[in-house]
């Protein structure tokens, strides 16, 4: 039997049924094509060909950062689920054509870091996709966005359209891209997973810094506690010494203690923190991470 893969499964189903009524063309947009094709084949007692199962339609999601923001990912996920498409996510890192030999080691280092970060960031997305039973492929490429998309378009069959999650100008995308591109602008200030990871490291760094400051302060006091005690217990105006000291300690060690619990993830949950009375009068802030779409053809 001869399957026409390029025009979608309905061609297959219709060939099997003989006719192509209008209703099935409408259904084409309304239902999951692969499942239906498989179901109709199964109904006729035929086995699903491996070829059909392998090459589903795809959505390509591209980002120039080492990660995808949560809303972009959620949007792509829901879209892929609704349409029954596969998802191909690609992080496009800063490129290099190999000509620039002087900067090559540094570039390689940066690219290795980018690759690592991107893979780290996509871990959670993988879990979510696996839970939905969607097929997912993740790649890390280097170069300009346009060239990478075209490259992928040639290599991967049946990419239907591109979701652009990067902040790059669209002019760059236009260069030679023959696919429809939708640009998703995540709401401002939304956390990108990879960056959040990086931020935690920053927190650890700050904690270590304040910890060292605290340790230094304690060392300074206990290295010669005899001399310290001599002046601190003189009484009278010398009373200012211990009092000033505990203020300094409570600031530095207090900040360190605060950071220790932050790093350990023990912090007040937002919803249980009582708003201040003045804050209650303000209208409630709403968070609606709704990506905005723009068609770029």
């Amino acid at each position: 039997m001869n399957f026409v893969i390029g025009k979608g499964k309905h061609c297959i189903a219709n060939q099997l049924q003989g006719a192509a009524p209008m209703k099935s063309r409408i259904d084409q947009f309304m239902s999951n094509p692969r499942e239906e094709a498989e179901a109709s084949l199964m109904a006729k007692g035929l086995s699903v060909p491996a070829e059909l199962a392998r090459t589903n339609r795809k959505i390509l999601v591209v980002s120039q950062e080492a990660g995808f923001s949560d809303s972009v990912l959620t949007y792509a996920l829901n879209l892929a689920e609704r349409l029954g498409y596969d998802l191909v996510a690609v992080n496009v890192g800063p490129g290099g054509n190999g000509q620039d030999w002087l900067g090559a080691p540094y570039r390689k280092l940066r690219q290795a870091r980018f690759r690592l970060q991107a893979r780290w960031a996509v871990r959670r997305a993988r879990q979510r996709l696996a839970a939905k039973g969607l097929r997912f492929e993740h790649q890390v490429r280097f170069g300009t966005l346009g060239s990478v998309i075209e490259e992928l378009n040639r290599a991967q069959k049946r990419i239907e359209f591109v979701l652009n999650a990067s902040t790059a100008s669209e002019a760059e995308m236009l260069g030679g891209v023959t696919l429809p591109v939708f640009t998703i602008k995540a709401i401002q200030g939304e956390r990108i997973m990879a960056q959040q990871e990086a931020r935690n490291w920053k927190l650890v760094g700050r904690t270590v810094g304040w910890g060292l400051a605290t340790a230094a302060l304690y060392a300074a006091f206990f290295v010669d506690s005899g001399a310290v005690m001599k002046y601190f217990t003189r009484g009278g105006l010398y009373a200012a010494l211990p009092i000033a000291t505990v203020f300094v300690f409570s600031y530095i060690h207090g900040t360190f203690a605060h950071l220790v619990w932050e790093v350990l993830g023990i912090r007040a949950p937002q919803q249980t923190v009582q708003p201040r009375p003045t804050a209650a009068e303000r209208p409630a802030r709403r968070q609606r991470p709704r990506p905005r779409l723009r068609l770029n053809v």
Partner: protein
Amino acid sequence: MHEAAASSVQFIDLNLTNIAFMFIVGFIGGLVSGFIGSGGAFVLTPGMMSLGVPAAVAVASNMCHKFPKALVGAIKRYKYGQVDIKLGLVMAASAGVGVQVGIKIQEWILKTWGQAGSNLYVSLSFVAVLVIVGGYVFYDAYSISKKGGNEEATGLAQRLQKINLPPMITFKTANIRISLWFTLPIGFATGMLAATIAVGGFIGVPGMIYVLGASSLVSSATELVIAFVMGFAGTIKWAMNGMVDIRLTLIILAGSLLGVQLGAIGTTYVKDYMIKIVMGTIMIIVAVSRGLAVPRYLTDLGLLSAGPTTLNILDKASFIFMCLALAIGAVIILGAMWRAKAAEAKQAATVATAEETYGRV
């Protein structure tokens, strides 16, 4: 004169055991006071004295660690919107008067009945106040938890708030409007108790809850402001006499600043009545501990005859109960936090599953 006072005091040598003891007790004390507004001092002062620190130095060093700890805790809980600074300052001002009166009473008793009489007075006031107030707090917390965990202002507080006796004061965070004349006695009693048993919060917090009608969350947070003001004033007095052993203070502070922040975070995880449960439990156990110390003072006064072995055992038991009070308080707090955290994680997982199924809300 000050130098003479200081040179006559023997400061102890530090070893690893001492340091570890003070650090750990500092941490647990900090945890409890971050949660219920006060605590730690009742173990630290006798604890330090059992390590050989003179009584005055123990009290002074403890007080010097108390106010920065209270400051850090108060700032943290202010960020959570729990501190009523105005209420705290009004209470602290009247508590200052209470402290002076309390000291005068102490001095009069010391002069009339001597050291043993003074100790007996302290222990008896401990037992009386803690059993009555602590018992009521615990009973209240128990009945709230039975009813489903929602706090309400007591009938007494509601009636007092209706009495329009100028000057009336509005406390915004506590969300109460009440006459100054009902606020002052609570502060005064807090100060008097602080001067007598060194833990004013055991009357201040229940006073704010049951008499003024503030929530236990706001009351315990506001107590930290009172503790800061009173601790600061007390420290100035002690430091002027050169009694503060800064080494002890700093070691305790190392633990307690960690603890007080954890305790403050803990209040955001649990229901309001948990504060009452912790406070009631600690107060009752401390009352038992002080009750065990009464026979010694009665013997000293010649009102009771008990052998030295019995008295020694009672002393040890008294101290162990004191530590137990703090430890049990800490265990309840950490347990409550743990459960709340686990529930939160479970809920987050449910939301995540819902998002997987229905898309992001």
